């Protein structure tokens, strides 16, 4: 059962009517006694690209990892507040974290293909989730997914070679392919281009533009140019606070907050 939201907040800041996919309420997070997030409120629009920017240590990656509960694996981490995905709180005890993650995929900073063949890298998760069963189904799924990740042409003749033998950019696209093979609704990208050269980055950006037709994408990035190029909405974080959120065009051309302006004009960060 999916509930639709129209958010006044969005209207005010972005000016567009957008369906909200994820809404974050008063999210606070501590590592031991250090508070890393100080009450974040944010709406993420469906089938759009939202970018999180801000200086190092501002909490943007931490927030991203809250959205598929990857922080669960850090033992001294404590969370308060709500994260609603399609109006379901993901921190509710009934929610199954494994199931949650199959709906919210994640791409990491450093390309991290499994030490298996390209084919197996893609087929790994669908096999576990029982998405494709027979060999033919799986072949088809792998082909489709690799095509979607615009990797098919480059690897179709070497599907059974190890994924680690690909170039960095190809590895990262393989990681994206691996993520969309599970048919997620949201894709979280944690600085996906920081380890790549400009040409490989451009390919990933192109791919993101393609993917947003089907998926809600959230990207954490250090590069403001990248945020300006690819995203529809931008959130600026500083010291664990959400300073400003809005339409990317607005954030970069007429920021409301002084801190945002200082950051995007390069006065600090």
């Amino acid at each position, binding site marked *: 059962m999916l509930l639709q939201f129209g958010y006044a907040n969005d209207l005010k800041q972005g000016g567009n009517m957008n369906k909200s996919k994820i809404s974050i309420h008063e999210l606070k997070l501590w590592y031991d006694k250090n508070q890393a997030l100080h009450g974040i409120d944010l709406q993420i629009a469906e089938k759009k690209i939202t970018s999180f920017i801000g200086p190092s240590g501002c909490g943007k990656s931490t927030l991203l990892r809250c959205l*598929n509960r*990857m922080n669960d*694996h850090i*033992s001294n981490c404590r969370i308060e507040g709500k994260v609603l995905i399609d109006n379901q709180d993901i921190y509710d005890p009934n929610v199954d974290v*494994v*199931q*949650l*993650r*199959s*709906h919210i*995929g*994640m791409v*990491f900073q*450093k390309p*991290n293909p*499994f*030490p*298996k063949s390209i084919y197996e890298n893609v087929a*790994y*998760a669908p096999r*576990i*989730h029982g998405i494709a069963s027979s060999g033919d189904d799986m072949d088809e799924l792998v082909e489709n997914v690799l095509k979607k990740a615009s990797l098919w042409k480059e690897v179709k003749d070497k599907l059974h070679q190890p994924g*680690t033998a690909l170039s960095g950019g190809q590895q990262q696209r393989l*990681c994206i392919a*691996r*993520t969309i093979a*599970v048919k997620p609704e949201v894709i979280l990208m944690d600085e996906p281009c920081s380890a790549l050269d400009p040409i490989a980055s451009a390919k990933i950006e192109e791919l993101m533009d393609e993917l947003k037709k089907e998926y809600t994408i959230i990207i954490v990035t250090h590069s403001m140019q990248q945020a300006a190029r690819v995203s529809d909405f931008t959130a600026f974080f500083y010291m664990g606070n959400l300073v400003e959120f809005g339409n990317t065009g607005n954030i970069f051309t007429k920021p409301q907050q002084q801190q945002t302006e200082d950051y995007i004009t390069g006065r600090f960060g």
Partner: protein
Amino acid sequence: MNTSDAAFYFFITVLPIAAVIGFLVKSKVQNAFNDTHWRSLPIHYAFYVGLVIALPGAIAFFFASALHLLTIYTADGIHVLVLATLLSMWGGFHSLKNVRPAFCARESVERIIRYFLISAAFISILTTIGIVLAIIFEAIHFFKIVSLWEFLTGTHWAPDDATEGNTSGMFGSIPIFAGTFMITIIAMSVAVPVGILSAVYMSEYASEHVRNIAKPALEILAGIPTVVYGFFAAITVSPLVVNFAESAGLHADYTNALTPGLVMGIMIIPFISSLSDDVIRSVPRSLRDASLALGTTNSETIIKIVLPTALPGIIAACLLGVSRALGETMIVVMAAGLRPNLTWNPLEGMTTVTVRIVDALTGDQAFDSPETLSAFGLGLVLLVITLILNFISIYVTRRFRSQYE
């Protein structure tokens, strides 16, 4: 006077003399140190002089005793003493001549030290070569009496019946190796699953606190001497196994292969768990994250991603365990049988290579009797197997390292 007495007299006189001269040199240089530019510190000149006095004589004694021990030539102690003293005096004059500002004493001292280090490294290699050669030489003696082919393919081992000139059919090693492999297989079927699963628990599930207790606790198992395991196997485990077999309606010998196998397996657990724990922990965190982010459970991630990635290291750990089991002596000497027995039944007594080696060498046979020499034949095979296993595990570990480090 023999060489060792001569060496004793030489060293109790020459070493103090060298030290005193060294000290005098040091104070002499110290006094003149500020007047001219010396290339090295006073202490370096002192060490240089001391070493050059003491070493030539020491080398002379070393060669004299080496020649004596190798039974090539036994020199009279007096002659060696005179030679050594002359050499040291020559060294003294030569070195004192060099105590001048332009001479770099430090470099000479460092060169001498370097030769010391190199010769130490050389001894370390000699040991391995020594083991191989010693065993090969004696094994050759043995294979002159018993043909290698017969030794490797014969199924009857009865060295007691062997007499001078009639050894055919008495030295077939197959039953001995069969017993060895049987016990090794039993040991590994205990140690591999328990070791790997413990490692998985310690590295993937346990909290840091539990791990800090569990890992050293397991390593206690590795610190228990094998003779203790042997006693435990013979006195405690063997009756348990026999009673258990009887309650199941089976007959078990007190020297059955199961007992030493089980106990050996327990002994090997820490080798496997500790090494596997290390390799599992060296699997990058990012691979686990990637798998978990795809919506997999912990165990799916471990079985499908972490363990296959760590597999080379785990295999190397298991191979190390196998070579431990093959070469383990005390447990089998105390708990396994003496009688070679070719059977599939682990409840029967059987013997192993190491048991036969100990038995052959602790008897009262002459050293060149076929039975005593057979120990070296068996030892040679054991050595070859161990070295092969070690080379494989080094190779596998290297491949793992090159991938993830």
